[in-house]
Protein backbone atom coordinates (compact mmCIF):
# COMPACT_ATOMS: atom_id res chain seq x y z
CA UNK A 1 0.00 0.00 0.00
CA UNK A 2 2.77 2.32 0.95
CA UNK A 3 4.68 1.56 -2.24
CA UNK A 4 1.80 2.61 -4.45
CA UNK A 5 1.77 5.95 -2.73
CA UNK A 6 5.50 6.32 -3.12
CA UNK A 7 5.33 5.34 -6.79
CA UNK A 8 2.57 7.86 -7.42
CA UNK A 9 4.61 10.52 -5.70
CA UNK A 10 7.65 9.67 -7.75
CA UNK A 11 5.60 9.73 -10.92
CA UNK A 12 4.26 13.15 -10.04
CA UNK A 13 7.77 14.47 -10.37
CA UNK A 14 7.59 13.66 -14.05
CA UNK A 15 4.55 15.85 -14.55
CA UNK A 16 5.68 19.49 -14.34
CA UNK A 17 7.45 19.89 -17.69
CA UNK A 18 4.59 18.18 -19.44
CA UNK A 19 1.64 19.93 -17.92
CA UNK A 20 2.76 23.13 -16.29
CA UNK A 21 3.87 26.53 -17.48
CA UNK A 22 7.37 27.93 -17.12
CA UNK A 23 6.75 29.51 -13.74
CA UNK A 24 5.74 26.23 -12.19
CA UNK A 25 8.48 24.26 -13.87
CA UNK A 26 11.00 26.68 -12.40
CA UNK A 27 9.36 26.38 -9.02
CA UNK A 28 9.63 22.60 -9.26
CA UNK A 29 13.32 22.92 -10.08
CA UNK A 30 13.83 25.05 -7.03
CA UNK A 31 12.03 22.48 -4.92
CA UNK A 32 14.37 19.78 -6.18
CA UNK A 33 17.41 21.85 -5.28
CA UNK A 34 16.02 22.65 -1.85
CA UNK A 35 15.19 18.98 -1.37
CA UNK A 36 18.77 17.85 -1.97
CA UNK A 37 19.98 20.54 0.41
CA UNK A 38 17.48 19.53 3.08
CA UNK A 39 18.23 15.81 2.67
CA UNK A 40 21.93 16.45 3.11
CA UNK A 41 21.27 18.48 6.24
CA UNK A 42 19.04 15.76 7.57
CA UNK A 43 21.85 13.24 7.42
CA UNK A 44 23.30 15.32 10.22
CA UNK A 45 20.16 16.38 12.06
CA UNK A 46 17.79 13.47 11.83
CA UNK A 47 20.03 10.48 11.35
CA UNK A 48 23.13 11.74 13.07
CA UNK A 49 21.54 13.67 15.90
CA UNK A 50 23.79 16.65 15.18
CA UNK A 51 21.85 19.86 14.70
CA UNK A 52 23.74 22.26 12.49
CA UNK A 53 22.82 25.87 11.91
CA UNK A 54 25.55 26.43 9.35
CA UNK A 55 24.78 24.03 6.54
CA UNK A 56 24.42 26.88 4.05
CA UNK A 57 28.23 27.00 4.19
CA UNK A 58 28.46 24.08 1.79
CA UNK A 59 25.83 25.29 -0.60
CA UNK A 60 27.34 28.76 -0.68
CA UNK A 61 30.98 27.77 -0.99
CA UNK A 62 30.33 25.32 -3.81
CA UNK A 63 28.28 27.95 -5.59
CA UNK A 64 30.92 30.63 -5.17
CA UNK A 65 33.79 28.43 -6.29
CA UNK A 66 31.93 27.43 -9.42
CA UNK A 67 30.89 31.02 -10.09
CA UNK A 68 34.40 32.38 -9.69
CA UNK A 69 36.12 29.66 -11.68
CA UNK A 70 33.77 29.91 -14.63
CA UNK A 71 33.29 33.66 -14.77
CA UNK A 72 36.71 34.89 -13.81
CA UNK A 73 39.25 32.22 -14.45
CA UNK A 74 37.92 30.71 -17.62
CA UNK A 75 37.26 27.24 -16.29
CA UNK A 76 34.89 24.97 -18.09
CA UNK A 77 31.84 23.88 -16.15
CA UNK A 78 32.94 20.29 -15.79
CA UNK A 79 36.29 21.18 -14.28
CA UNK A 80 34.77 23.91 -12.16
CA UNK A 81 32.23 21.48 -10.76
CA UNK A 82 34.92 18.99 -9.81
CA UNK A 83 37.09 21.61 -8.12
CA UNK A 84 34.06 23.08 -6.42
CA UNK A 85 32.85 19.81 -4.95
CA UNK A 86 36.36 18.76 -3.99
CA UNK A 87 36.94 22.08 -2.26
CA UNK A 88 33.62 22.00 -0.46
CA UNK A 89 34.12 18.44 0.74
CA UNK A 90 37.60 19.27 2.00
CA UNK A 91 36.20 22.26 3.83
CA UNK A 92 33.57 19.99 5.37
CA UNK A 93 36.28 17.64 6.58
CA UNK A 94 38.13 20.54 8.17
CA UNK A 95 35.01 22.10 9.70
CA UNK A 96 33.98 18.70 10.98
CA UNK A 97 37.15 18.29 12.99
CA UNK A 98 36.47 21.61 14.71
CA UNK A 99 32.74 21.27 15.16
CA UNK A 100 32.88 17.74 16.51
CA UNK A 101 34.88 18.93 19.49
CA UNK A 102 31.47 19.85 20.88
CA UNK A 103 28.03 18.33 21.01
CA UNK A 104 24.52 19.67 21.25
CA UNK A 105 24.41 23.43 21.68
CA UNK A 106 28.16 23.88 21.37
CA UNK A 107 28.07 22.06 18.04
CA UNK A 108 25.19 24.26 16.93
CA UNK A 109 27.10 27.39 17.81
CA UNK A 110 30.31 26.32 16.15
CA UNK A 111 28.49 25.50 12.93
CA UNK A 112 26.73 28.86 13.19
CA UNK A 113 30.01 30.63 13.81
CA UNK A 114 31.83 28.94 10.96
CA UNK A 115 29.10 29.80 8.49
CA UNK A 116 29.05 33.39 9.77
CA UNK A 117 32.77 33.59 9.13
CA UNK A 118 32.22 32.51 5.55
CA UNK A 119 29.32 34.92 5.16
CA UNK A 120 31.45 37.74 6.50
CA UNK A 121 34.24 36.85 4.10
CA UNK A 122 31.87 36.74 1.14
CA UNK A 123 30.45 40.09 2.15
CA UNK A 124 33.66 41.95 2.81
CA UNK A 125 36.23 40.52 0.44
CA UNK A 126 34.66 42.38 -2.43
CA UNK A 127 37.71 42.14 -4.66
CA UNK A 128 37.14 38.45 -4.75
CA UNK A 129 33.44 37.97 -4.28
CA UNK A 130 31.96 41.28 -5.38
CA UNK A 131 30.58 41.64 -1.89
CA UNK A 132 26.99 42.77 -1.61
CA UNK A 133 26.58 42.91 -5.39
CA UNK A 134 27.05 39.23 -5.78
CA UNK A 135 28.34 37.60 -8.92
CA UNK A 136 25.98 37.79 -11.85
CA UNK A 137 25.92 36.87 -15.48
CA UNK A 138 26.78 33.25 -14.87
CA UNK A 139 26.02 30.44 -17.27
CA UNK A 140 24.57 27.01 -16.96
CA UNK A 141 26.59 24.00 -18.01
CA UNK A 142 25.78 22.14 -21.19
CA UNK A 143 26.34 18.47 -20.43
CA UNK A 144 26.98 16.53 -23.61
CA UNK A 145 26.25 19.70 -25.51
CA UNK A 146 22.65 19.87 -24.33
CA UNK A 147 21.65 23.36 -23.30
CA UNK A 148 20.02 23.75 -19.92
CA UNK A 149 18.73 27.22 -20.49
CA UNK A 150 15.09 26.38 -20.92
CA UNK A 151 13.09 25.72 -17.79
CA UNK A 152 12.11 22.25 -18.92
CA UNK A 153 15.61 21.12 -19.82
CA UNK A 154 16.97 22.42 -16.52
CA UNK A 155 14.21 20.65 -14.69
CA UNK A 156 15.09 17.28 -16.24
CA UNK A 157 18.73 17.85 -15.34
CA UNK A 158 17.82 18.74 -11.77
CA UNK A 159 15.48 15.76 -11.57
CA UNK A 160 18.21 13.37 -12.64
CA UNK A 161 20.67 14.80 -10.14
CA UNK A 162 18.04 14.88 -7.38
CA UNK A 163 16.98 11.31 -8.02
CA UNK A 164 20.55 10.17 -7.89
CA UNK A 165 21.15 12.15 -4.72
CA UNK A 166 18.03 10.76 -3.10
CA UNK A 167 18.97 7.21 -4.03
CA UNK A 168 22.47 7.60 -2.70
CA UNK A 169 21.35 9.13 0.56
CA UNK A 170 18.58 6.57 0.99
CA UNK A 171 21.08 3.77 0.53
CA UNK A 172 23.46 5.49 2.91
CA UNK A 173 20.82 5.66 5.60
CA UNK A 174 19.79 2.01 5.29
CA UNK A 175 23.34 0.72 4.95
CA UNK A 176 25.50 -0.77 7.66
CA UNK A 177 27.18 2.61 8.09
CA UNK A 178 23.79 4.29 8.32
CA UNK A 179 22.79 1.87 11.05
CA UNK A 180 25.97 2.62 12.92
CA UNK A 181 25.22 6.35 12.56
CA UNK A 182 21.77 5.94 14.02
CA UNK A 183 23.20 3.77 16.75
CA UNK A 184 25.79 6.38 17.65
CA UNK A 185 23.02 8.97 17.71
CA UNK A 186 20.98 6.92 20.18
CA UNK A 187 23.56 5.23 22.41
CA UNK A 188 27.11 6.40 21.73
CA UNK A 189 28.59 4.61 24.75
CA UNK A 190 26.99 1.31 23.86
CA UNK A 191 28.19 1.65 20.27
CA UNK A 192 31.74 2.29 21.40
CA UNK A 193 31.59 -0.79 23.60
CA UNK A 194 30.48 -2.76 20.57
CA UNK A 195 33.49 -1.68 18.57
CA UNK A 196 32.17 1.30 16.59
CA UNK A 197 34.27 4.48 16.54
CA UNK A 198 31.70 7.19 17.30
CA UNK A 199 33.86 10.16 16.32
CA UNK A 200 34.83 8.65 12.99
CA UNK A 201 31.23 7.73 12.18
CA UNK A 202 30.14 11.30 12.89
CA UNK A 203 33.00 12.87 10.99
CA UNK A 204 32.44 10.78 7.87
CA UNK A 205 28.75 11.67 8.00
CA UNK A 206 29.62 15.34 8.37
CA UNK A 207 31.79 15.16 5.27
CA UNK A 208 29.16 13.28 3.30
CA UNK A 209 26.51 15.82 4.27
CA UNK A 210 28.85 18.60 3.16
CA UNK A 211 29.40 16.84 -0.14
CA UNK A 212 25.71 16.72 -0.99
CA UNK A 213 25.26 20.24 0.34
CA UNK A 214 27.87 21.25 -2.21
CA UNK A 215 26.03 19.41 -4.96
CA UNK A 216 22.88 21.34 -4.13
CA UNK A 217 24.98 24.49 -4.23
CA UNK A 218 26.08 23.76 -7.77
CA UNK A 219 22.53 23.23 -8.91
CA UNK A 220 21.59 26.40 -7.05
CA UNK A 221 24.11 28.56 -8.86
CA UNK A 222 23.33 26.95 -12.21
CA UNK A 223 19.65 27.65 -11.73
CA UNK A 224 19.96 31.23 -10.53
CA UNK A 225 22.96 32.15 -12.68
CA UNK A 226 23.78 34.44 -9.80
CA UNK A 227 25.26 34.11 -6.32
CA UNK A 228 25.06 36.46 -3.37
CA UNK A 229 26.31 36.32 0.22
CA UNK A 230 22.78 35.78 1.53
CA UNK A 231 22.98 32.21 0.30
CA UNK A 232 25.59 31.70 3.02
CA UNK A 233 23.56 33.47 5.67
CA UNK A 234 22.14 32.06 8.85
CA UNK A 235 18.66 32.67 7.45
CA UNK A 236 19.46 30.31 4.62
CA UNK A 237 20.65 27.65 7.06
CA UNK A 238 17.66 28.29 9.28
CA UNK A 239 15.22 27.86 6.39
CA UNK A 240 16.77 24.51 5.58
CA UNK A 241 16.65 23.48 9.24
CA UNK A 242 13.04 24.51 9.44
CA UNK A 243 12.27 22.47 6.35
CA UNK A 244 13.89 19.42 7.86
CA UNK A 245 12.18 19.76 11.21
CA UNK A 246 8.83 20.70 9.73
CA UNK A 247 8.85 17.81 7.34
CA UNK A 248 10.04 15.33 9.89
CA UNK A 249 13.68 14.59 10.55
CA UNK A 250 13.28 10.90 11.29
CA UNK A 251 12.33 10.08 7.74
CA UNK A 252 13.68 10.47 4.21
CA UNK A 253 10.50 11.94 2.81
CA UNK A 254 10.18 14.48 5.60
CA UNK A 255 12.97 16.83 4.53
CA UNK A 256 11.72 16.78 0.94
CA UNK A 257 8.21 17.70 2.01
CA UNK A 258 9.49 20.27 4.44
CA UNK A 259 11.81 21.88 1.91
CA UNK A 260 8.99 22.06 -0.60
CA UNK A 261 6.73 23.61 1.98
CA UNK A 262 9.22 26.28 2.97
CA UNK A 263 9.94 27.12 -0.65
CA UNK A 264 6.28 27.29 -1.61
CA UNK A 265 5.49 29.44 1.38
CA UNK A 266 8.32 31.73 0.49
CA UNK A 267 7.25 32.07 -3.10
CA UNK A 268 3.51 32.35 -2.65
CA UNK A 269 3.51 34.21 0.57
CA UNK A 270 5.88 36.87 -0.60
CA UNK A 271 3.44 37.67 -3.38
CA UNK A 272 0.66 38.35 -0.89
CA UNK A 273 2.36 39.08 2.39
CA UNK A 274 5.37 41.27 2.59
CA UNK A 275 6.72 39.82 5.74
CA UNK A 276 8.20 36.48 4.79
CA UNK A 277 10.45 36.23 7.84
CA UNK A 278 7.57 36.73 10.21
CA UNK A 279 5.61 33.99 8.53
CA UNK A 280 8.67 31.75 8.68
CA UNK A 281 8.95 32.43 12.38
CA UNK A 282 5.29 31.71 13.01
CA UNK A 283 5.50 28.47 11.06
CA UNK A 284 8.53 27.50 13.15
CA UNK A 285 6.57 28.09 16.31
CA UNK A 286 3.56 26.23 15.02
CA UNK A 287 5.44 23.17 13.86
CA UNK A 288 7.56 22.87 16.97
CA UNK A 289 4.58 23.28 19.29
CA UNK A 290 1.96 21.31 17.43
CA UNK A 291 3.81 18.62 15.54
CA UNK A 292 7.36 18.40 16.85
CA UNK A 293 8.19 15.25 14.98
CA UNK A 294 7.16 16.89 11.74
CA UNK A 295 4.51 16.72 9.08
CA UNK A 296 5.31 13.38 7.48
CA UNK A 297 5.09 11.38 10.72
CA UNK A 298 1.96 13.31 11.69
CA UNK A 299 0.40 12.49 8.34
CA UNK A 300 1.28 8.85 8.56
CA UNK A 301 -0.17 8.70 12.06
CA UNK A 302 -3.30 10.29 10.67
CA UNK A 303 -3.61 7.79 7.84
CA UNK A 304 -2.91 4.92 10.21
CA UNK A 305 -5.64 6.22 12.45
CA UNK A 306 -8.04 6.48 9.55
CA UNK A 307 -7.34 2.93 8.56
CA UNK A 308 -8.07 1.83 12.13
CA UNK A 309 -4.32 1.63 12.53
CA UNK A 310 -2.64 -1.23 14.21
CA UNK A 311 0.72 -2.60 13.17
Amino acid at each position, binding site marked *: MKWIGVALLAASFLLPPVFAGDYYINLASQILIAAIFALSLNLLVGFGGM*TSLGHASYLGVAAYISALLTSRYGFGHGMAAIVSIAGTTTMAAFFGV*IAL*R*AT*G*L*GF*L*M*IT*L*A*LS*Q*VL*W*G*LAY*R*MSNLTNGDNGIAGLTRPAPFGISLDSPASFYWFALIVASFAFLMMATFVSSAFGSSLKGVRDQPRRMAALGFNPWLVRWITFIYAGFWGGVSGLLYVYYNKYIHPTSLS*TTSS*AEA*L*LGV*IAGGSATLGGPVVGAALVLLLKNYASAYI*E*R*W*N*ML*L*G*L*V*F*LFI*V*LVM*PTGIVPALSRLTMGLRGGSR
Partner: protein
Amino acid sequence: MQFWIIQGLNSLSLGGLLFLLSSGFSLIFGLMRVANLTHGAFFMLGTYLGATALRSWDGLNIWVTALGAGIAVAAIGGLFERLVLTRLKTNPLGQVLVTLGMSFIISDACLMLWGGDSIPVPTPQNLQSPTRVLGFVFPTYRLVLVGCAIGAAIVLYFLLERTRLGAMIRAGVDDRQMARAVGIPVSNLFTVVFCLGAGIAGAAGVLGGPILSAYPGLDADMLPLALIVVILGGIGSLLGAFVGSFIIGFIYTFGTALFPELAYIILFLPMIFVIAFRPQGLFGRLSA
Protein backbone atom coordinates in the same frame (compact mmCIF):
# COMPACT_ATOMS: atom_id res chain seq x y z
CA MET B 1 47.26 58.64 19.33
CA GLN B 2 43.83 60.14 18.97
CA PHE B 3 42.79 57.12 16.98
CA TRP B 4 43.74 54.68 19.72
CA ILE B 5 42.00 56.67 22.42
CA ILE B 6 38.83 57.10 20.44
CA GLN B 7 38.74 53.45 19.52
CA GLY B 8 39.58 52.56 23.08
CA LEU B 9 36.61 54.50 24.36
CA ASN B 10 34.40 53.05 21.67
CA SER B 11 35.54 49.62 22.79
CA LEU B 12 34.64 50.41 26.36
CA SER B 13 31.20 51.71 25.51
CA LEU B 14 30.52 48.77 23.23
CA GLY B 15 31.72 46.50 25.98
CA GLY B 16 29.34 48.16 28.36
CA LEU B 17 26.43 47.65 25.99
CA LEU B 18 27.45 44.08 25.41
CA PHE B 19 27.49 43.44 29.11
CA LEU B 20 23.95 44.72 29.44
CA LEU B 21 22.93 42.53 26.53
CA SER B 22 24.78 39.37 27.44
CA SER B 23 24.17 39.35 31.18
CA GLY B 24 20.54 38.57 30.45
CA PHE B 25 21.49 35.93 27.92
CA SER B 26 23.90 34.31 30.34
CA LEU B 27 21.33 34.22 33.13
CA ILE B 28 18.70 32.69 30.88
CA PHE B 29 21.07 30.12 29.53
CA GLY B 30 22.58 29.33 32.89
CA LEU B 31 19.27 28.78 34.62
CA MET B 32 16.99 27.53 31.91
CA ARG B 33 19.57 25.94 29.60
CA VAL B 34 17.85 27.79 26.77
CA ALA B 35 20.02 29.52 24.20
CA ASN B 36 17.73 32.47 23.70
CA LEU B 37 18.30 33.36 20.07
CA THR B 38 15.61 36.04 20.43
CA HIS B 39 17.90 38.10 22.60
CA GLY B 40 19.22 40.26 19.76
CA ALA B 41 15.66 40.98 18.69
CA PHE B 42 14.72 42.03 22.23
CA PHE B 43 17.60 44.47 22.15
CA MET B 44 16.59 45.81 18.76
CA LEU B 45 12.99 46.20 19.84
CA GLY B 46 14.18 48.30 22.73
CA THR B 47 16.24 50.44 20.38
CA TYR B 48 13.28 51.08 18.10
CA LEU B 49 10.94 51.84 20.99
CA GLY B 50 13.52 54.20 22.42
CA ALA B 51 14.08 55.83 19.06
CA THR B 52 10.40 56.59 18.60
CA ALA B 53 9.92 57.80 22.13
CA LEU B 54 12.98 60.04 22.18
CA ARG B 55 12.26 61.54 18.79
CA SER B 56 8.60 62.16 19.49
CA TRP B 57 8.91 63.73 22.90
CA ASP B 58 11.62 66.28 23.18
CA GLY B 59 13.45 66.25 26.46
CA LEU B 60 12.17 62.83 27.47
CA ASN B 61 14.51 61.35 30.00
CA ILE B 62 16.50 58.51 28.50
CA TRP B 63 16.56 56.59 31.77
CA VAL B 64 12.81 56.64 32.02
CA THR B 65 12.57 55.55 28.42
CA ALA B 66 14.96 52.71 29.03
CA LEU B 67 12.94 51.59 32.01
CA GLY B 68 9.70 51.81 30.06
CA ALA B 69 11.05 49.93 27.08
CA GLY B 70 12.61 47.39 29.40
CA ILE B 71 9.26 46.72 31.00
CA ALA B 72 7.53 46.44 27.64
CA VAL B 73 10.09 44.01 26.28
CA ALA B 74 10.05 42.07 29.54
CA ALA B 75 6.30 41.68 29.21
CA ILE B 76 6.64 40.34 25.67
CA GLY B 77 9.36 38.01 26.83
CA GLY B 78 7.24 36.81 29.71
CA LEU B 79 4.29 36.03 27.46
CA PHE B 80 6.56 34.15 25.09
CA GLU B 81 8.07 32.17 27.94
CA ARG B 82 4.72 31.27 29.48
CA LEU B 83 2.91 30.45 26.26
CA VAL B 84 5.63 28.83 24.23
CA LEU B 85 8.82 27.94 26.05
CA THR B 86 7.26 26.17 29.01
CA ARG B 87 5.56 23.73 26.68
CA LEU B 88 8.91 22.67 25.31
CA LYS B 89 10.68 21.65 28.48
CA THR B 90 11.46 18.20 27.11
CA ASN B 91 12.57 19.46 23.74
CA PRO B 92 15.74 21.54 24.03
CA LEU B 93 16.23 21.63 20.28
CA GLY B 94 12.67 22.84 19.91
CA GLN B 95 13.35 25.59 22.42
CA VAL B 96 16.24 26.87 20.36
CA LEU B 97 14.14 26.76 17.23
CA VAL B 98 11.22 28.69 18.67
CA THR B 99 13.52 31.39 19.96
CA LEU B 100 14.92 31.59 16.44
CA GLY B 101 11.40 31.76 15.07
CA MET B 102 10.47 34.44 17.59
CA SER B 103 13.48 36.48 16.55
CA PHE B 104 12.28 36.37 12.95
CA ILE B 105 8.82 37.47 14.07
CA ILE B 106 10.06 40.39 16.11
CA SER B 107 12.57 41.57 13.53
CA ASP B 108 9.99 41.50 10.77
CA ALA B 109 7.50 43.25 13.01
CA CYS B 110 10.04 46.01 13.55
CA LEU B 111 10.54 46.22 9.80
CA MET B 112 6.81 46.48 9.36
CA LEU B 113 6.33 49.13 12.03
CA TRP B 114 9.36 51.28 11.44
CA GLY B 115 10.34 50.71 7.84
CA GLY B 116 13.66 49.86 6.33
CA ASP B 117 15.56 53.05 6.97
CA SER B 118 18.01 53.51 9.76
CA ILE B 119 16.60 55.75 12.51
CA PRO B 120 19.18 57.77 14.35
CA VAL B 121 18.55 58.32 18.03
CA PRO B 122 19.35 61.68 19.56
CA THR B 123 21.83 61.77 22.38
CA PRO B 124 20.19 63.15 25.51
CA GLN B 125 20.72 66.88 25.70
CA ASN B 126 22.35 67.05 29.09
CA LEU B 127 24.92 64.52 27.97
CA GLN B 128 25.74 66.06 24.66
CA SER B 129 28.60 68.33 25.62
CA PRO B 130 31.92 66.56 25.60
CA THR B 131 33.98 65.85 28.67
CA ARG B 132 37.56 67.02 28.92
CA VAL B 133 40.05 64.74 30.58
CA LEU B 134 43.79 65.37 30.50
CA GLY B 135 43.51 67.50 27.43
CA PHE B 136 41.54 64.88 25.52
CA VAL B 137 37.94 65.28 24.52
CA PHE B 138 35.56 62.41 25.06
CA PRO B 139 31.95 62.08 24.04
CA THR B 140 30.19 62.14 27.39
CA TYR B 141 27.48 59.71 26.50
CA ARG B 142 29.92 56.92 25.83
CA LEU B 143 31.48 57.43 29.23
CA VAL B 144 28.05 57.30 30.76
CA LEU B 145 27.38 53.98 29.06
CA VAL B 146 30.43 52.47 30.66
CA GLY B 147 29.21 53.79 33.98
CA CYS B 148 25.83 52.20 33.29
CA ALA B 149 27.37 48.83 32.69
CA ILE B 150 29.35 49.03 35.90
CA GLY B 151 26.24 50.11 37.75
CA ALA B 152 24.20 47.30 36.28
CA ALA B 153 26.94 44.82 37.13
CA ILE B 154 26.87 45.97 40.74
CA VAL B 155 23.08 45.77 40.93
CA LEU B 156 23.03 42.33 39.36
CA TYR B 157 25.78 41.19 41.67
CA PHE B 158 23.78 42.28 44.67
CA LEU B 159 20.67 40.70 43.26
CA LEU B 160 22.37 37.38 42.73
CA GLU B 161 24.56 37.23 45.80
CA ARG B 162 22.57 39.04 48.46
CA THR B 163 18.91 38.46 47.83
CA ARG B 164 16.71 35.43 48.28
CA LEU B 165 15.70 35.59 44.63
CA GLY B 166 19.34 35.56 43.68
CA ALA B 167 20.02 32.60 45.89
CA MET B 168 17.20 30.70 44.26
CA ILE B 169 18.56 31.58 40.83
CA ARG B 170 22.03 30.43 41.75
CA ALA B 171 20.66 27.21 43.16
CA GLY B 172 18.72 26.61 39.98
CA VAL B 173 21.79 27.24 37.86
CA ASP B 174 23.85 24.81 39.90
CA ASP B 175 21.38 21.99 40.15
CA ARG B 176 17.89 22.40 38.81
CA GLN B 177 16.47 19.16 40.13
CA MET B 178 17.84 19.68 43.57
CA ALA B 179 16.45 23.18 43.64
CA ARG B 180 13.04 21.82 42.76
CA ALA B 181 13.40 19.19 45.42
CA VAL B 182 13.97 21.78 48.13
CA GLY B 183 10.84 23.59 47.13
CA ILE B 184 12.10 26.37 44.91
CA PRO B 185 9.33 27.24 42.43
CA VAL B 186 11.53 26.63 39.44
CA SER B 187 9.03 27.28 36.69
CA ASN B 188 8.04 30.66 38.14
CA LEU B 189 11.69 31.39 38.54
CA PHE B 190 12.17 30.67 34.86
CA THR B 191 9.56 33.24 33.93
CA VAL B 192 11.08 35.82 36.25
CA VAL B 193 14.56 35.29 34.88
CA PHE B 194 13.42 35.32 31.29
CA CYS B 195 11.56 38.57 31.86
CA LEU B 196 14.56 40.02 33.64
CA GLY B 197 16.90 39.03 30.83
CA ALA B 198 14.59 40.31 28.12
CA GLY B 199 13.95 43.52 30.04
CA ILE B 200 17.61 44.27 30.50
CA ALA B 201 18.15 43.64 26.80
CA GLY B 202 15.32 46.01 25.92
CA ALA B 203 16.63 48.71 28.21
CA ALA B 204 20.09 48.20 26.81
CA GLY B 205 18.63 48.70 23.37
CA VAL B 206 17.35 52.13 24.33
CA LEU B 207 20.68 53.09 25.82
CA GLY B 208 22.52 51.84 22.75
CA GLY B 209 20.34 53.86 20.41
CA PRO B 210 22.40 57.07 20.37
CA ILE B 211 25.49 55.08 19.43
CA LEU B 212 24.13 52.38 17.14
CA SER B 213 20.89 53.84 15.73
CA ALA B 214 17.88 51.68 15.13
CA TYR B 215 18.12 49.73 11.90
CA PRO B 216 16.93 46.43 10.47
CA GLY B 217 19.55 43.83 11.09
CA LEU B 218 20.65 45.29 14.40
CA ASP B 219 19.49 42.07 16.03
CA ALA B 220 21.61 39.97 13.70
CA ASP B 221 24.61 42.16 14.48
CA MET B 222 24.19 42.04 18.24
CA LEU B 223 23.17 38.43 18.86
CA PRO B 224 26.42 36.81 17.70
CA LEU B 225 28.34 39.24 19.88
CA ALA B 226 26.27 38.24 22.91
CA LEU B 227 26.82 34.56 22.08
CA ILE B 228 30.54 35.05 21.83
CA VAL B 229 30.70 36.99 25.07
CA VAL B 230 28.82 34.34 26.99
CA ILE B 231 30.82 31.47 25.57
CA LEU B 232 34.08 33.27 26.16
CA GLY B 233 33.20 34.41 29.63
CA GLY B 234 31.53 31.24 30.73
CA ILE B 235 27.89 30.42 30.99
CA GLY B 236 26.08 31.48 34.11
CA SER B 237 28.97 33.61 35.25
CA LEU B 238 28.29 37.31 35.74
CA LEU B 239 31.98 38.02 36.08
CA GLY B 240 32.58 36.11 32.88
CA ALA B 241 29.97 38.16 31.05
CA PHE B 242 31.54 41.36 32.38
CA VAL B 243 35.10 40.50 31.42
CA GLY B 244 34.06 38.86 28.19
CA SER B 245 32.02 41.88 27.12
CA PHE B 246 34.96 44.22 27.32
CA ILE B 247 37.32 41.81 25.67
CA ILE B 248 34.93 41.37 22.77
CA GLY B 249 34.20 45.09 22.73
CA PHE B 250 37.91 45.70 22.16
CA ILE B 251 38.36 42.93 19.65
CA TYR B 252 35.36 44.00 17.62
CA THR B 253 36.10 47.73 17.65
CA PHE B 254 39.76 47.47 16.82
CA GLY B 255 39.17 44.56 14.49
CA THR B 256 36.65 46.39 12.35
CA ALA B 257 38.76 49.54 12.42
CA LEU B 258 42.02 47.90 11.45
CA PHE B 259 41.00 44.87 9.39
CA PRO B 260 37.49 45.45 8.10
CA GLU B 261 37.66 42.52 5.70
CA LEU B 262 38.52 40.03 8.39
CA ALA B 263 36.21 41.39 11.06
CA TYR B 264 34.10 38.26 11.29
CA ILE B 265 37.02 35.92 11.50
CA ILE B 266 38.61 37.96 14.26
CA LEU B 267 35.37 37.87 16.13
CA PHE B 268 34.44 34.24 15.77
CA LEU B 269 37.85 32.71 16.11
CA PRO B 270 37.99 33.17 19.89
CA MET B 271 34.57 31.60 20.20
CA ILE B 272 35.49 28.62 18.10
CA PHE B 273 38.65 28.14 20.10
CA VAL B 274 36.86 28.36 23.39
CA ILE B 275 34.20 25.85 22.44
CA ALA B 276 36.78 23.52 21.03
CA PHE B 277 39.39 23.73 23.75
CA ARG B 278 37.92 25.22 26.89
CA PRO B 279 34.19 24.75 26.75
CA GLN B 280 33.55 26.19 30.17
CA GLY B 281 34.92 29.55 29.10
CA LEU B 282 37.08 31.77 31.25
CA PHE B 283 34.98 31.73 34.38
CA GLY B 284 32.12 29.36 33.85
CA ARG B 285 31.44 26.10 35.56
CA LEU B 286 29.15 24.66 32.93
CA SER B 287 29.99 24.04 29.33
CA ALA B 288 27.82 24.82 26.34
